[in-house]
């Protein structure tokens, strides 16, 4: 069953790093699963906890691609995102949903290969976890 399972992923991408790397990965013809929904944000700090929770209601995993810690265009946006991701992981632990379904990644704006690798690892991990049991039915 898990072998046939295609995880539905939401990837929030900071437009100063994750999005540029994602574009590079696409141009380099790395193949993404059709079930990856990319969401562009002006800064990872713009992502609220509820955005991640809503994405989890509809999917199997959420990845946040942010700038390296010292390189946020807005100074602390990625640190805020990190704190929010941590708080979501705590909630998931409380309700017994695997916290690995939410991950935060840091990368440079021109790293298409790393973006594709990180997404691939996330995808494979979600495949191992199987479907999100908390996901909305139907």
């Amino acid at each position: 069953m898990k072998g046939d399972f295609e995880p539905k992923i939401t990837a929030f991408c900071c437009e100063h790093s994750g999005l540029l790397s994602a574009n590079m990965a696409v141009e380099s013809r790395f193949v993404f699963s059709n079930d990856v929904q990319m969401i562009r944000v002006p800064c990872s700090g713009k992502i609220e906890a509820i955005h991640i929770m809503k994405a989890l209601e509809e999917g199997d995993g959420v990845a946040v691609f942010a700038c390296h810690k010292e390189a946020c265009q807005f100074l602390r946006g990625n640190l805020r995102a990190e704190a929010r991701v941590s708080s979501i992981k705590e909630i998931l632990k409380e309700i017994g949903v695997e916290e690995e379904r939410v991950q935060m990644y840091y990368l440079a704006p021109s790293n298409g290969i790393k973006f594709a690798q990180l997404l691939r690892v996330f995808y494979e991990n979600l495949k191992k976890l199987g479907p999100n049991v908390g996901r909305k039915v139907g």
Partner: protein
Amino acid sequence: MIIGERKPIQEVLGMIAEHDKILIAGCGTCVAICMAGGDKEVSILASAIKLARNKEEKSIQILEQTPLRQCEWEFVDELKDKIETCDAVLSMACGIGVQTLVERFPKAVVYPAVNTTFLGLPEEQGVWSERCGACGNCVLDKTGGICPIVRCSKSLLNGPCGGSQDGKCEIDSEVDCGWQLIYDRLKTLGKLDNLTDILPAKDWSTSRDGGPRKMVREDMKL
């Protein structure tokens, strides 16, 4: 303002275990400012409950609404229609909000999703601390505007105990000694003489010792 903290989700799930349709009612005042029960927190809790219930294959319908205040009849009346269609209400207000709903909607089953913790202020973003014990007989005029009831761990009225060390309290090295704060403040104000006035034993009947408190202002009645 009133500071609150969301209860553990498992505790909340236990309260609503038998219900299939609930309203989560936030409050747009104190608990919204301390990020415990405003509209954002209502949505996050709703989402967490849905995930948890889907996991148990026991889906739940959740309505959400956050009136500006949950501690006044006029504001909670806007919840009436939704409350009537739900099995239960999960209030994310302070304990006052929960009881306002109970009194206004006697047939509704209302559960608290927030622990009301203290009266305080946000020292900085994400940090809140206690400032008032609502003792009903304020002595801030005598202590330089720093409350000995809540800033001193023992609520002492006439100076520190022997546990005050280097300006910190013996209960925790991170906690300021309330009486050190008072002394420093009075020194800054040039009012150290205040400390020679002995405060008499406090009459706690204006606080919790006097039973449930009630205030009536005939001049304000309609």
